[in-house]
């Protein structure tokens, strides 16, 4: 039985998803301002790490990394996490990923919500 990561196409799928996902995030007024002052290349590498994690791929992402990365951001709340997960779903639909797999990916993304929000 193949893993989620294999089913959706592995690293190739991550590469295809990064640009689409990042473009959606930047175009989303709810969250785009958090990305105003970041270096886009560095940010794209981080998005790739995030997508690899939620696609169930090989990664060393830990809850501690996520807490560390988000703790300086003021006003972060569930609305922002929802927006990210929504954009993630939109990206996967665009790439033709099956609904069941999208649900599984969204669940993984949801599982780190408390880390991101430092709760």
């Amino acid at each position, binding site marked *: 039985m193949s893993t989620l990561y294999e089913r959706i196409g592995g*690293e190739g799928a991550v*590469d295809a998803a*990064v*640009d689409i996902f*990042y*473009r959606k995030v*930047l*175009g989303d007024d709810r969250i785009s301002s958090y990305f105003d002052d970041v270096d*886009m*290349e560095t940010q*794209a*590498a*981080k998005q*790739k*790490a995030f997508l*690899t994690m939620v696609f169930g791929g*090989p*990664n*060393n*992402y830990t809850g501690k990394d996520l807490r560390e990365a988000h703790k300086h951001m003021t006003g972060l709340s569930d609305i922002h996490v929802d927006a990210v997960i929504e954009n993630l779903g939109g990206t996967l639909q665009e790439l033709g990923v099956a609904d069941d797999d999208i649900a599984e990916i969204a669940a993984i993304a949801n599982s780190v919500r408390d880390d991101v929000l430092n709760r």
Partner: protein
Amino acid sequence: MTTIHFDDRAISIEKGHSVLQTLLGVGISIPNSCQSGVCQSCMMQAVKGKVPDKAQQGLKDTLQAQNYFLSCQCHPEHDLVIRKAVNENPGVDAHIKEIELCKKDIARIFIEADGDFSYHPGQYISLWRDDKIARSYSLASVPALHGNMLELHIRHIPGGELSDWLFNQAAVGTEVTVQGPLGNCFYMPDNLQQDLILAGTGTGLAPLYGIVRDAVNQGHKGNIHLLHGSVDESGLYLYEELVQLQSEVANFQYHPLTLKAPKVNNNGITQISIENYIKNEAGDMKDKKIYLCGPEELVKKLRKICFLQGASLKHIYADAFIHNKSK
């Protein structure tokens, strides 16, 4: 057993270990984070030897061309000589060959390196006037056309330690040191049909002029659009040269842009900001290669605009000029 050479040390790699693990294992500190080939913080450069393809996966093509690799993903089959990603080489002696004043505060400076100096047009160097003072400038020349003659475009910043000296004291024959090159904003001939868009303001034209001439020289077939922005016409240096190049090269188009209205007749100059010109005129940027050079804030803004207009991040090459606050 495979051996890596680093900083005059020869270190053998244990089976199954990466270059990163090996270096960390013998107490050499290398920045790293994800150890999964994603974050790119453990990037190093091979000076000699063949880097496995897997160790370059995900890196920008201009980094691959310079033998950069991710040390955490590198399990070499052959010996490698490697160094840290940002390497300080000692520099090459050179001397000023010609100073051509283009506009009142912009000069083209031609510097002849006394030995071989290899680079890609669009990369930058540190120019040392003595052993204390150096500034970074981009390369507008093309090695295949100009050999060891390096062309830099320098704006005179009153009080600037290097530009003041260049404009007021340096002369033909003055000795300098050239160190580098650095930077990943240059032409790669991997797809001759792709359209290129190059945009910059002020002396951001220097790297772009180098990249345009390099692409033309390497037989690029797609359209090449050069957008040069300035406050007024006085900043559009190289105007005649670029109009001339446009008449000679069918797939090259020069777009001079100014914020203020042109004085006499417009001579093809459009009164618009470079941001708005890209928004209004450039259209869908999917599958185009984008080169952006100029002040940091502008480059940031343009990168975002181009990305939102469909350009892929891996196809956006940028060189942001960072001002030395101490002048």
